[in-house]
């Protein structure tokens, strides 16, 4: 049978191999993501999440939270199970399952903000009401999650952004670590850590 699967890069898994001190980047598999469009007040009340949703400077935590994407659009992230009742709902909102559409990366450590600065000119703690932005040239969603930063990106851009993160994490290579950071960048280009 004709198989197009080999044309797609595998979803990056595990942790990026980095030599940069104070930095850890990993791929998060298994989160459920549902997009809500329309009447956010009604939908967030129904699903028990914050009605505003976190923006770029916002802080999310726990196993179920909301991320603001636009005036009338929001992403609800849950630890495991998919929200019920996909599709148009009475009362004026739509629920769309997005778990397979967006890859999620987590950036953690004292140098995490340095990586973010390379992808966007938006201040990390800038406090934009929306978490949707252009990051490293592609559409993404960025916010703080507990003591880390979470970055969602279209599945089709996941391999690119994983590579980009490996290279962007090279800062100070040659000065503080004798070039090991540069090697980490090459490792990232060679493929994801298994």
């Amino acid at each position, binding site marked *: 049978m004709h198989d197009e699967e080999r044309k797609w890069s595998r979803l990056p898994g595990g942790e990026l191999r980095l030599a940069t001190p104070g930095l850890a980047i990993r791929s998060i598999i298994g989160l459920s993501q549902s997009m809500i469009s329309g009447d956010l007040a009604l939908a967030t009340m129904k699903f028990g999440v914050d009605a505003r949703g976190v923006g770029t400077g916002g802080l999310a935590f726990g196993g179920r939270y909301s991320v603001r994407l636009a005036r009338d659009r929001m992403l609800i992230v849950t630890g495991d199970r998919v929200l019920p009742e996909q599709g148009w709902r009475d009362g004026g909102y739509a629920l769309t399952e997005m778990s397979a559409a967006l890859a999620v990366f987590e950036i953690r450590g004292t140098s995490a903000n340095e990586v973010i600065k390379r992808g966007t000119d938006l201040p990390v703690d800038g406090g934009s009401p*929306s978490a949707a932005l252009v990051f490293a040239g592609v559409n993404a969603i960025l916010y703080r999650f507990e003591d880390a930063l979470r970055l969602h990106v279209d599945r089709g851009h996941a391999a690119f952004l994983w590579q980009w993160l490996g290279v962007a994490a090279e800062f100070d290579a040659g000065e503080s670590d004798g070039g090991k950071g540069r090697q980490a960048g090459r490792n990232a280009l060679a493929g994801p850590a298994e």
Partner: protein
Amino acid sequence: MQLFPCPFCGPRSEAEFHFGGDAGNVRPDEDEVSADRWSSYLYMRHNQKGMSPSIWMHMTCGELFQLDRDTLTHSVAGSKALTEGGHR
């Protein structure tokens, strides 16, 4: 690089925005429009010098809004949402 104020998201890089033409260039009623009026709607631009209202979309959130910008200095005077009432 310049920051544009999205009425919903606040200041964002100009690279996140898409130009939508002169503000106020309203599509004429197709049943009654003259050839001159129609070609003006399609092709003629004001190309104003100084403060000019224009329509933009913030691509990351989909907000459609009016931006008032000086075509000489590029300084931005403000923006307003095109949602009903123009409020947040």
